[in-house]
């Protein structure tokens, strides 16, 4: 009857007697008393392998004082949970959209980055999307021309397609319609389509949409685009020479950020853009004189569009030139001091009351374009009274949706959104 020591985990059981006349199962039962590990879960290492329940001790050659090692636990056996987790990779494509936290990108059809970024920007405005969805396929009102109607339908379809897909979409149909409506986008240069200004595309598309959506009878809001993007301005027109002063009101779709050598910051550029000089006939002087026009924001839209005026006409070379000056933009944009007295008064209350930290701005870096294309960073700002904050995509989407829910409730007046857009950076990327 040899005596062995058994090592189990960090414990050592010295002097365990083996009854060599019995099957090893008996020995295992002995160990069960010591360790609490049921015999069928015990693994005992002997020379050349594991100790089998029916092995013969004599062939194993266990020596007196030998150290055996036992493995095994009384732990619960790991069982797979009844309902395994669902993995993104297993989901159908449409559902991956939600989980991936981004929507599909757009193929570049050859210098169509301006168009793609415009679509991406507009696509991220949920109110516009919801209005578009209601746009009827056929019900064209009479004051709308055919091509505008087709463009609106194409926009709607493209938006739908973007929502449905994870993989990049080729906006073929839309592009064709766009060129039909605005032939300038179809200009060719050396046999390929020319680079275009995104601002132009934005303006034209917005104009078309405002036209068609206004006329669409199904919309409860008669002028959706204006409600979303229109900026009310009041301007004081003042003539230095004569001291004449008048005021006028207008509605625009974008604020201009003028870039001159003293502009380092978006805010300065906006201030700059709201002041202009114009020459007109002065009734008191009887000749044309220089008037100063000083505009203020009188009504803020949900999405504030800002154009970085990066192109100017170089008179000496008769060329369009690009201003490459770096203009800093804040993640939160406060336009309070650009507002008129009236609007300020309106805003004063929520400014003090509202301490909600959830002022929002949605930065949609249009990284989604796949293919040979430059990609364009465009910003759309959402804000809760004039404090704007940029959020990156996913958060923006999540919080954005949340806020829009809220905004339909009591906070409605305080919550305004703005969209600002600017071409910041071009990068080429081949995938």
């Amino acid at each position, binding site marked *: 009857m040899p005596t062995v020591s058994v090592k189990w985990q960090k414990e050592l059981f010295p002097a365990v007697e083996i009854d060599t006349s019995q099957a090893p199962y008996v020995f295992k039962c002995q160990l069960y008393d010591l360790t609490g590990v049921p015999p069928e879960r015990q693994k005992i290492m002997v020379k050349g392998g594991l100790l089998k329940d029916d092995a013969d001790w004599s062939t194993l050659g266990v020596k007196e004082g030998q150290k055996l090692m036992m493995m095994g636990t009384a732990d619960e056996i790991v069982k797979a949970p009844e309902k395994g987790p669902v993995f993104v990779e297993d989901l159908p494509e449409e559902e991956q959209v939600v989980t991936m936290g981004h929507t599909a990108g757009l193929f570049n059809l050859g210098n169509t980055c301006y168009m793609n970024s415009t679509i991406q920007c507009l696509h991220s405005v949920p109110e516009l999307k919801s209005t578009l969805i209601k746009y009827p396929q056929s019900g064209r009102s009479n004051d709308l021309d055919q091509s505008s109607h087709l463009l609106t339908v194409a926009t709607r379809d493209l938006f739908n397609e973007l929502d449905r897909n994870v993989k990049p979409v080729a906006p073929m149909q839309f592009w064709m319609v766009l060129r039909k409506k605005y032939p300038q986008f179809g200009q060719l240069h050396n046999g390929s389509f020319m680079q275009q200004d995104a601002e132009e595309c934005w303006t034209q598309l917005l104009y078309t949409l405002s036209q068609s959506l206004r006329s669409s009878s199904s919309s409860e809001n008669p002028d959706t685009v204006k409600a979303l993007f229109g900026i009310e301005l009041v301007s004081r027109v003042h003539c230095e020479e004569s001291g004449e002063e008048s005021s006028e009101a207008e509605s625009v779709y974008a604020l201009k950020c003028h870039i001159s050598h003293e502009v380092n910051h978006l805010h300065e550029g906006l201030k700059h853009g709201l002041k202009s000089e114009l020459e007109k006939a002065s009734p008191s002087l009887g000749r044309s004189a220089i008037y100063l026009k000083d505009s203020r924001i009188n009504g803020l839209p949900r999405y504030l569009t800002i154009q970085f005026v990066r192109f100017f006409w170089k008179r000496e070379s008769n060329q369009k030139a690009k201003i490459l000056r770096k203009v800093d933009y804040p993640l939160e944009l406060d336009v309070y001091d650009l507002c008129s007295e009236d609007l300020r008064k309106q805003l004063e209350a929520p400014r003090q009351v509202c301490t909600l930290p959830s002022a929002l701005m949605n930065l949609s870096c249009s990284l989604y374009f796949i293919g040979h294309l430059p990609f364009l960073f465009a910003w759309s700002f959402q804000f809760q009274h004039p404090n704007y904050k940029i959020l990156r995509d996913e958060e923006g989407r999540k919080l954005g949706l949340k806020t829009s829910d809220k905004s339909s409730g009591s906070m409605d007046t305080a919550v305004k959104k703005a969209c600002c857009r600017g071409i910041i950076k071009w990068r080429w990327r081949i*995938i």
Partner: protein
Amino acid sequence: MAPDPNKSASGSGTTRDETTVKVPSKDPKKKDEKKDEDLSDEDLALKQQLELYVERVQDSDPGLQKVALESMRQEIRTSTSSMTSVPKPLKFLRPHYGTLKSYYETMADSDLKKLLADILSVLALTMSAEGERESLKYRLLGSEGDIGSWGHEYVRNLAGEIAQEYAKRQSEEASVKDLMELAQQIVAFHMKHNAEPEAVDLLMEVEDLDLLVEHVDSTNYKRTCLYLTSAARYLPGPDDMLVLDIAYMIYLKFEEYPSALQIALFLDNMQYVKQVFTSCDDLLRKKQFCYILARHGITFELDEEMAADDEDREALQEIINNTKLSEGYLTLARDIEVMEPKSPEDIYKAHLLDGRASAGASVDSARQNLAATFVNAFVNAGFGQDKLMTVPSEASSGVSSGNWLFKNKEHGKASAAASLGMILLWDVDSGLAQIDKYFHSNDSHVIAGALLGVGIVNCGIKNDCDPALALLAEYIDRDDSSIRIGAIMGLGIAYAGAQSEQIRRKLTPILGDTKAPLDVIAFTAISLGLVYVGSCNEEVAQAIIFALMDRSESELGEPLSRLLPLGLGLLYLGKQESVEATTEVSKTFNEKIRKYCDMTLLSCAYAGTGNVLKVQHLLGQCEQHLEKDATHQGAAVLGLAMVAMAEDLGLEMELRSMEHLLQYGEQNIRRAVPLALGLLCISNPKVNVMDTLSRLSHDTDTDVAMAAIISLGLIGAGTNNARIAGMLRNLSSYYYKEASLLFCVRIAQGLVHLGKGLLTLAPYHSEHFLLSPTALAGIVTLLHACLDMKAIILGKYHYVLYFLVLAMQPRMLMTVDENLKPLSVPVRVGQAVDVVGQAGRPKTITGFQTHSTPVLLAAGDRAELATEKYIPLSPILEGFVILKENPEYREDH
């Protein structure tokens, strides 16, 4: 006699009476005249004096001749002290060299003639035309007196001429006896005068290094051996082996056993290792030897001759078996206070990125969870606790280990279960206990993972009970191939380098099984390669060769088939010519695999040798622009890194040629270059390599980008390098949409924080002298798998990442007392300085800081004790070092 009219006109000032010796007007050159103008009085006097001697030497009176010669010799000897310029007497005698030479020829043999020969020999130092070796010629004709009396410069010159003469006579097969006598004198002189490198150089030239042994003494043997060992790296075979042999003998002679052991390990000569053990009879020192062997990662059985006492032998064997490695590592971790487990999120540090990457995924992504599994395993490697796998099931958080396991999909579960082995690395007892529960699972992937986990836990640890073999052997013949692979790979990792006959008998039949699927065969070949790494075992080689021949052409085209030649190559790791027979056989292989096999065998056989010819050969393979069948070029690029990683100079050159390959190479070469860079600088984040890889990580070719990202992880492995961590963080946001690239970024992040910065993957240790074959084998296996990232790592064989465990070692200095208990002492840690061949006793480290042990050592760091109180038993302070109290130490107040 009046001085030369020309000279008196020189206006150098006064002339003296005693200098009125008529100089034979031997058309003094214009140049000499010019020089004379600047001569001071004393110099002029000396010059004229010497001219007088020259005159008298040619006198017919032998007495006068002798006096003149002796005075001339006196003059020369007393002025050789100057090192900066040609000694004055030599300069002044220059014009008379020809005179004396021709006079010498006319002399009859006599002592005087010998005396003159001596002088001529010295004069030849500055006069002799290139290649004439007149200094040596006259030396041999001369009186053979004390060689050193003519000054150091003379001896050096002579040594140089001997080397040339030796080579000439060798080619003419003439006798070199006289040269050897002279060489012996010179060596003796050099060795006495701190010029060991010169002595060694001369002896290497005359191919008689054995002479060195009798000339070394306790004051100069260290410098001599240091020079020998570092010179060996640049010598062609078999000279390098010879040089190291001599160094080994010298170390043994002076009882510098640890150094002798290191050389024995470098030579991979077990006979020598044994000799070290038998020569030494101090138990404590033997324990230190065992620590060195354990770090090198070889299997070594002590016998009675090496340690007579049973109990002692058991204690020693325990050290070799690495049973206490886990304990030491945890002591280090506690000392550095990094025991707290880290979750993958702690590593990703997504909060440092603005927004985008922190997509709060509501649905699990299997790939991202798998990445988290690996990150978790790498970061918490060896700590025994983590936040995903080892959480007790009753934990209120609800994230019990079972839950995390099942957050992985299919084969992902195998890696998850195996990650437990990584977390409990080296701690066999608790490791097996924790893995046990997975054996009873009914999911074959989980069982496969558990089997692999057992292998990982046992990596580098030997245990008498052989638990890994006992547990895994049962499973290698199961039907389910994932279980088979788990068991086979587990065996390979657990017994790497063990050369175990038992395992060979179990595994070789699988290779012969024609029905076995390719992946099982491939992993079997690798496991056998690991177990028999560097053994040149013929039977294993045969088995793999037959397996290769049995594969159909389509099978050989599969990505995993590359593991078969690699398994074959590993058998010859570092064995140089021994591979040749197998290379011949490989020529008969199917052409799909032939070249790949060729490259792999070559690169493995010459891995870590720095052999320039092989580097050239491999570069030659890379410069071809092949249209198809170019997969072997990837292996060739990796081979370049394997061969050139041996020493710093070759490494730098290799980094340069990699840059060229990037620019001019085909795409499949470009894909391998980042991996090669990763191997060259593994766990050694050189800034230039980091920049190159960072650039490549944005490459338009995703394969290049993926390889570069993984390599960023490799070069930063275990360093916590903040710059790489930042780069990877940015990459994680750059690639947040590309699941496979993001996976690579995550893996790299896990590698950078390997063992929370306590581990290294560098296969080189002991001050970059020794190369651990198992460590290199592990890394190379992973790199070959990375050559086809998409099919292997991003496919279902991601667990090949666990091959890295073979290279994982704590990068620590742990000092222990005579009872092997940790002992904290102050040490200076700084950048190592190359002191080979430097005069005096230069500082070996620079820019050091003083710490208390245990302490971490970065790549290129060296430590030295900052106290006299203890004496380390190993000259190289790395890993475990036993300290002995210094009997001569006195506490000063």
